[in-house]
């Protein structure tokens, strides 16, 4: 199999470096996106369709990052885009919001098990910050308990002291505990009785660079009870997992009920929208928080979200994606084993994390991912991957074929492994 070249990607990147900080900043860029080595990765896409994107050099990729989650039905899904364009004909960003906002809120309240109301914004970080502010408004308390290694966006309170631009005041109210460690959590609550406004966590632990971890049996039920007993708002950050585990919310998937839940990525199949859902008891508090944005009530993403949610429900999206993820990863593990590589798979299969576990440096894993990317399978080496509903059996087969060749290439360089 020929490996890809990225001449035009580099040309655009060199232009970008002159006028954009770091060329491409953030998670889609070569530094935070862990393009290792950078020469193996495309920088810019030309177009996308279904499960694929094509870079500016014309190389096709089966895309297992799905724009880091938003692509859930397939890029350019005809139904979703038609709904959005139909709305555009009527109006998008207007002084008075469109009633389609109400229709989407009703649909979400019907769909998401815990939801009594919905507040819309744009990015995941908009609603994680709102969740925290709402909890503070409701309780009159300041502190928040977070899980070590968790990610809730880039607002100053989500970052750490010692990071550029962050001051002590930004993070002084954060208390960190380990995932699945109920005793530590209980101790932290005891030590700060009456001071904790909110416990925020993802439905399961999906850090970068590490195996993902599901909740221990009974963990969430104990946490739920502790929060209820202590008057702590339990906020679930479902930005990444949302609608890939359960259309009714990932709290529902794990058998508990959150007080607040944050959605974003898969909500509108790539149209820009996020949502905070909550219980009745917090409706007054969220209304009281000063919070809004120029584009938050634009109508096209609302239309797209209605189409996306309806289709996800009709197609049994989460179950299908989990089955696809299982089929894909089972095959990858088998192929890896043929070459003596131990490919560890963790997390829920619709957004599985994987890592070659023969070394503790990820060096072998980075080499293998690079070989896959150069042959048209876009994986990342540090983050969980994402499944979408446009993937076909042929796509999975082709992925397995590429993975095999990539393992072969790595094995050649490291005959001692396995």
């Amino acid at each position: 199999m020929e490996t890809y070249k990225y001449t035009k990607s580099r040309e655009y990147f060199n232009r970008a470096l002159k006028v954009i900080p770091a060329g491409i900043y953030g998670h889609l860029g070569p530094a935070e996106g862990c393009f290792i080595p950078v020469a193996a990765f495309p920088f810019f896409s030309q177009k996308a369709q279904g499960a694929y994107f094509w870079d500016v050099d014309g190389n096709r990729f089966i895309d297992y990052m799905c724009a880091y989650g938003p692509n859930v039905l397939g890029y350019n899904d005809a139904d979703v885009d038609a709904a959005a364009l139909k709305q555009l004909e009527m109006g998008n960003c207007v002084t008075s919001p469109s009633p389609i906002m109400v229709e989407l809120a009703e649909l979400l309240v019907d769909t998401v098990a815990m939801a009594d109301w919905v507040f819309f914004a744009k990015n995941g970080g908009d609603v994680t910050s709102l969740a925290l502010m709402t909890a503070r408004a409701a309780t009159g308390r300041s502190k928040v308990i977070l899980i070590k290694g968790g990610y809730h966006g880039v607002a100053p309170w989500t970052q750490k002291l010692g990071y550029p631009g962050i001051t002590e005041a930004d993070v002084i109210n954060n208390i960190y505990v380990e995932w699945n460690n109920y005793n530590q959590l209980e101790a932290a609550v005891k030590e700060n009785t009456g001071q904790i406004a909110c416990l925020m966590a993802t439905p399961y632990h999906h850090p970068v660079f590490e195996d993902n971890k599901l909740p221990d049996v009974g963990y969430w039920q104990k946490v739920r009870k502790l929060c209820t007993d202590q008057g702590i708002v339990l906020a679930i950050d479902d930005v990444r997992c949302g609608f890939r585990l359960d259309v009714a919310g990932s709290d529902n998937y794990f058998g508990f009920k959150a007080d607040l839940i944050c959605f974003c990525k898969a909500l509108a199949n790539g149209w820009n929208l996020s949502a905070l859902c909550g219980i009745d008891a917090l409706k007054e508090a969220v209304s009281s928080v000063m919070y809004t944005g120029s584009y938050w009530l634009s109508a096209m993403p609302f239309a797209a979200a209605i189409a996306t949610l309806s289709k996800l429900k009709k197609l049994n999206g989460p179950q299908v994606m989990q089955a696809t993820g299982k089929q894909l990863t089972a095959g990858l593990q088998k192929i890896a084993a043929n070459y003596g590589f131990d490919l560890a798979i963790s997390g829920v299969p619709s957004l599985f994390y994987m890592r070659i576990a023969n070394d503790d440096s990820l060096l072998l894993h980075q080499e293998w991912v690079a070989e896959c990317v150069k042959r048209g399978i876009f994986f990342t080496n540090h983050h969980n991957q994402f499944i979408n509903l446009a993937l076909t059996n042929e796509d999975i087969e082709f992925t397995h074929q590429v993975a095999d060749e990539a393992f072969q290439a790595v094995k050649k360089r490291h005959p001692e492994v396995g």
Partner: protein
Amino acid sequence: MLDDLTRGCINLHAILRNLEDLCDLDPDARGIIMNKNLSILFAAKSIPPALLVFAKGKCKMTRGTGHHDIKLFFKSPQHFNRMIDGLASPIPLKGFTKISFLTGEFSKLAERLAYFLKPTPQLLEDERYSEINTILTAYTAFYALAEIGNNDPIGKLNAARIADGTVGIRVLNGGPEISLIAKGGKLEIKKGIEPEARAFMTFDSLDTASGILNGGLDSYACIGNGSLEIKGYIPMVDNMNKLLAQVAAYLK
């Protein structure tokens, strides 16, 4: 905010430490110490001591104490820093008869070191000068990084986030190889790269290294264009980079 203790540790264990490499790289420096056989202990309150040994035309600096001919005492990190800035004198506790070495050869060596660490655009046009400047700058930056991680209040937070293991740092095409070893949040620098390093940071040239370490080049942009390559267990490098950002502030 710069912390005096951290500055003192950097002055001793990152900047003065360069005398060792200076005497290797620069024939003039070597000439100054050619026939000197003598050792100096730097003992500044709160700063881990350092022993500087001159023997057979070579200079070696080690952490800790040992046999010494001269002992220089400083009442505080501030006192030591003022000496480095040329504003105060040490208190010699031992070796009064050898003090002439300090005012003679040693101060010439220190001048030579300052010459290589404080470049001007004209000086940098000289290829050999520029090479020595970059090598010493790289050593200074990474030894300083460890001192910041071990002493500065914010630095300690970032050091604690570096997982145990070794980061191998390479400057290709004539630059040094350095290991940063993290254990339980404590950092140590060694020359050379250990084969079992968990992460690597490779500068493609002396120019890239000097641009990033002296400021002027954006490390994110360099990762993008491939002139700075990072690989392996990236969280180690990420947190190390946060310390590197503090290095520039301390060395300014």
